[in-house]
């Protein structure tokens, strides 16, 4: 079974890290969308950390970050990096395995 196509409705704990570079519109939207998802779908079972690569450039090496903003799902496994338009909630949900992909989405 492919873990990707299995939406999670269980009590798993999520650890997420969002890598941004300072304060730009893009990073602001990424942060907002991610927070919303956490509050709606992962209430009480998530840890979200926002890391500014300007302040901590060495953190990029740890998770092999190539570009910012990037959202990393550390736990539950497998580790997944999401990059691109992070203001797209639907896409984000699918990427995090919280939603089944609907027809037409990535």
């Amino acid at each position, binding site marked *: *079974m*492919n*873990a*990707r196509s299995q939406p999670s409705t269980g009590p798993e704990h999520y650890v997420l890290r969002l890598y*941004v*570079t*300072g*304060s*730009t*519109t*893009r*990073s602001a939207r990424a942060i907002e969308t991610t927070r919303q998802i956490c509050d709606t779908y992962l209430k009480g079972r998530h840890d979200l950390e926002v890391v500014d*690569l*300007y302040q901590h*450039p*060495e953190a*990029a*090496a740890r998770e092999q*970050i*190539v*570009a*910012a*903003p990037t959202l990393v799902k550390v736990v539950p496994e*497998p580790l*997944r*990096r*999401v*990059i*691109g*338009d992070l203001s797209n909630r639907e896409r984000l949900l699918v990427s995090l395995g919280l939603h089944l992909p609907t027809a037409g989405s*990535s």
Partner: protein
Amino acid sequence: MPIRSLDVPTAVHPLQREADELRSRLAEAEETLQAIRQGDVDAVVVSGDSGPQVYTLLNADRPYRTFVERMQEGALTLTPDGTVLFANQRLASFLGLALSNIVGRKFAQFIQAEDRKLFDTLLTGCDQDGCDQDGCDQDGCDQDGRDQDGRDQVGRDKAGGRSELGLRAADGATVPAYISMVELLDEGQHIISAIVTDLRWAKQRMRELTEANARLVTAMAERERAEELLRQAHKMEAVGQLTAGIAHDFNNLLAVLGGNLELFLTRTTDEWLRHRVEASQRAVDRGARLTKQLLAFSRHQNLRPHSISVNALLRDIEPLLRSSVGDEITLTLVLGDALAECLVDPTELQASMLNLVSNARDAMPGGGCLTITTAEAELDGPADGEPGPIRGGRYLSIAVTDNGHGMPLGVRERAFDPFFTTKDVGKGTGLGLSQVYGFMRQSGGHVAIESIIGGGTSVRLYLPRSNAPETKALKIKVPKTKQRGIKAPRTVPEPRATDVTPRSVPPARRVLVVEDDRDVRELVVEVLDSLGYASIPAESGHVALKLLDNGLAVDVVVSDVLMPDGMSGFQLAREIRRRLPRLAIVLTSGMTAIAGGGANMTPDWPILRKPYRGDDLLQAIETALDAGAVGGGIGLI
């Protein structure tokens, strides 16, 4: 959603797992490439020799750039040796230069010479090599020698700090500024980043506030001073009113005493009795002098100002002054040239001069120098040592200066207060200077004291200038006296040799006596009787007028000035003038008539001051009658 509950082992085939992982990673890589292609990223991370470097794409940078460009502060980055790498437009505007003239130059040239050393210190870090925990107090310097990233700064001092300094604008002008510098590590290179705040606005505000505060403080001090002067003036005024009232009542008593004593003398030849009466008369005289001094202080004197030359007056009384001062003191007159005349009552001025000279003499018990100087003076504000408000203008000044023991500040402040004296009991009433003060103020002048302890005192009189030509050589009667001490000339003539027989007068002179005080009225009637007049008493102005209107025939009216019932002696006199223009009038007073319209007004009618001797009354009546005979006028006492 599960399809069927097959007990499928969770251990998936290893190849399947690997395939899944590869697919996952591929998907991720494709996603990343797409995101970059679409420009959905702010920055990319590039692995460099010293770790990952974050490369920001231009547009993502914009908020920062805009912020730095638009903020109110100047921003710049410098190399460690102070060359400008970057400066924002704001800084350029502070300096009044184009950016191109700033970037690439050494920033020190845009700092005022006197602040360059300070800038240098900020730029290069602490003065000491390495950081010493105890000794280092430089801002931004981490005390154990580490920089902000925790790296050892071996062999390199930490730059940075904050300070006020002066920038040098294009035109050479100083721009007060506050600079805040910090050292950054960028790609292994040290650069200095600085924010420059323009302090001109802040300094201007500060300056304005300080000035406003100073003005406020000055205004408050002036106000306090003015209030103090006003308080002082009010106090003097109040005391003056009180004193005048007392003096007036006292004079009435003295009049009764003196008059009755005089009558007594006419009725006895007993030597012992006469001695007693004469001694009592002398006491009455002293009482009269005292009340006169009180009146002088309270500015209720009856002054007769004339236009006189102060130099002439001083020369006239010089012998008197010399005798008053004695042999051990050198008196020098320094009289100014071509002085204008002043308007003052010469008799009172003479009395004041004697007063001041004897004060000076008392300040030099072992002898010394006394100088009297006359000059013209211009006053335009409160003079030092002058109590009360002062009117500006041109004056004649007479200064009495001694080199005696001087006055301490406490004494000087109270010198003009009535009854204040530093002399022993019985040696002075403390009225002298207050008399002088009252006299000068009433004359429209001023008096000021300067004194240094151990150095001497100078009392300066300022007399108002006169606009009238000098009245023909007014000779002042100087009574001969060998006594030491203040002796004001008496306003009543020397006592004549007492005579038992009354003076002979033309027969049947009728006198209308107007006086509200019963005892005084009876006394006057008695005195007139003894002088050979027939007198008709009236207890008020109204009664007197009624008598006259009803046809009472008299030759002269003798009336007190201050009477109740709303009609003063002056008013009565005016009323009588309207009815009987040729009727002789003599006014008497225990005080200068206030009802006449101001203490400083020269009265049209002569005023005989209580207490008076019978002879004085006689003279007054006769003079008035003579003047009346000539036609309409009233003679001067």
